[in-house]
């Protein structure tokens, strides 16, 4: 799906990502793990084309054979609309506080796909029910819902959009243990149902281990180790990975 070569992101002289080369295979779950500040989130921003204006982007990002580096603002927007969906960490702040969820879910889904309101309502209700959310959610404001419910709403958008690539930036770190596991379970279900390519970013090795097919370990803007889940956890090669794994178990 994604073929990234020598990706570098810097702001003036400060390198956020230094020459990353990796692929995100189609229909699989790839996880990028690393501590905060290792450049994980910057990677996602680079792929989505939402880096701040003062950042310089170098290298190549091939998506389905097309290089995304030099696309215009509008082309990038079109791409995000058509192919990607991203779930972020802080679900409580992911929605505007003064709009009903109905409208916000609409602009995150049906507006992208050009669906009419009736079609949207019919489809979203089924999805919400499937996610164990009542229809009342639609008439609620974000501050009336819990973080776990709001994160499930984001998941509902992902289910609605059926994107080619679903990205998730620390989707579980703001949730408590119980909701974390539930979210992972549902994410996995979505993956098996739709066969979506997933790029997951997490600092939580447990999360990565329980869901990913392939793991990239990042440190200081570079990939220090990569491999199948079993390889990484059973025979970590890099010192940094060894420490991460040791700390986790």
């Amino acid at each position: 799906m994604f073929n990234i070569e020598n990706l570098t992101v810097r702001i003036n002289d400060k390198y956020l990502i230094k020459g990353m080369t990796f692929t995100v295979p189609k229909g699989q779950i790839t996880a990028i793990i690393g501590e905060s500040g290792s450049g994980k989130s910057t990677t996602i921003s680079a792929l989505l084309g939402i880096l701040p204006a003062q950042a310089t982007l170098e290298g190549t990002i091939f998506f389905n054979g097309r290089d995304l580096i030099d696309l215009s603002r509008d082309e990038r927007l079109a791409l995000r609309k058509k192919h990607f969906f991203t779930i972020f960490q802080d679900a409580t702040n992911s929605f505007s506080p003064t709009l009903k969820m109905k409208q916000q879910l609409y602009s995150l889904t049906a507006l992208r796909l050009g669906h009419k309101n009736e079609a949207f309502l019919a489809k979203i209700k089924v999805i919400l029910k499937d996610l164990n959310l009542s229809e009342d959610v639609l008439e609620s404001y974000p501050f009336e819902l819990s973080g776990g419910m709001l994160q499930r709403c984001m998941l509902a958008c992902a289910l609605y959009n059926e994107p080619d690539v679903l990205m998730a930036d620390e989707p579980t770190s703001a949730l408590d243990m119980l909701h974390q596991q539930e979210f992972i379970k549902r994410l996995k279900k979505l993956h098996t149902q739709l066969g979506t390519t997933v790029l997951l970013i997490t600092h939580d090795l447990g999360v990565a281990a329980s869901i990913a097919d392939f793991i990239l370990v990042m440190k200081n803007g570079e990939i220090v180790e990569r491999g199948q889940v079993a390889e990484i956890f059973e025979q970590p090669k890099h010192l940094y990975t060894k420490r991460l794994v040791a700390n986790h178990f």
Partner: protein
Amino acid sequence: MIAKWIGKRVIMGTIVLIIVSFLSFFIMHAAPGNPAAAYYGGNAQTLSTAEKERIEKAFGLDEPVLYQYGTWLREALQGNLGYSAKEGRPVAAILQERLPTTLQLVVLTLLIVAIASTWLGLLAGMKEGSIVDRVLSMFSIASSAIPPFWLGILFIMVFSVQLGWFPTSGMNDVRGEGGLVDRLYHIVLPLTVLVISHVGIFARFLQDSVKAENRSYYVQVAFANGVPEREIRTMVFRNAVIPYINYIGMTIPSFFGGSIVVETLFGWSGLGQLLVKSVMVKDFPVLMGAILIIGVVVVICLFMIDVLMICLNPRLRRGGIV
């Protein structure tokens, strides 16, 4: 929840009015001379001794101050604010003439300021770092440093004395028939002065509010997920406008303060001019009445702003954090 909230505001408004009325009463009480004389002003001299005694008794001048205040308040609530010391007419009647003219000026100002500053603030705030953004920031500081009356003087110098486009003062042409067009012709200069001296800070406030909102998390989430920019702007506006309206509410007293100066300069016979005149000639009943009525109008305005806030902010409506 809403009922409780409105109830709280009404109590708040009542407290304000009690303080204002106490202030008014305190002024009359602290004023030099006999309170009865102050109350009846120039007419007091025509009163006979027996009548004076009757008044003193009626006002309970031998009673404690708080009792007197109570009596005065009861009278005031019934619309009896006493008589002007200078004109001899009932204060209530004078206020009735003056209030609409002040409201014309203030409401029109508020309306124009709100529309213009919303437009400017959005224009500048949505494009951070643009020329409009920077120019507005500078204009806002500059405009808040110009005393409105000085701006008024400059305007009179240029537009009335030099160019002769607008009248220097007054509300109607003395020889003319009056009417709406004439009134509008006279309101242009005072209105412009008030608008210019207020529009900058309001636009600046919205501008900063929009900028802060643009950086918020949900905007980034929406942007990352391909929500069209128009849609995002609408969301940003909806949220940025709430603190902005609140700010307008907080500044409403300053509009009435500003109108005092501008009314006097342009001879606009409203409450502000009345207030200044009554201080000059020490017409205490009129002064008290004018302060009281301004207090009432401000409280009503603030209540209207509160209602608007309920409509705009679902947190207030749905009982989140009050």
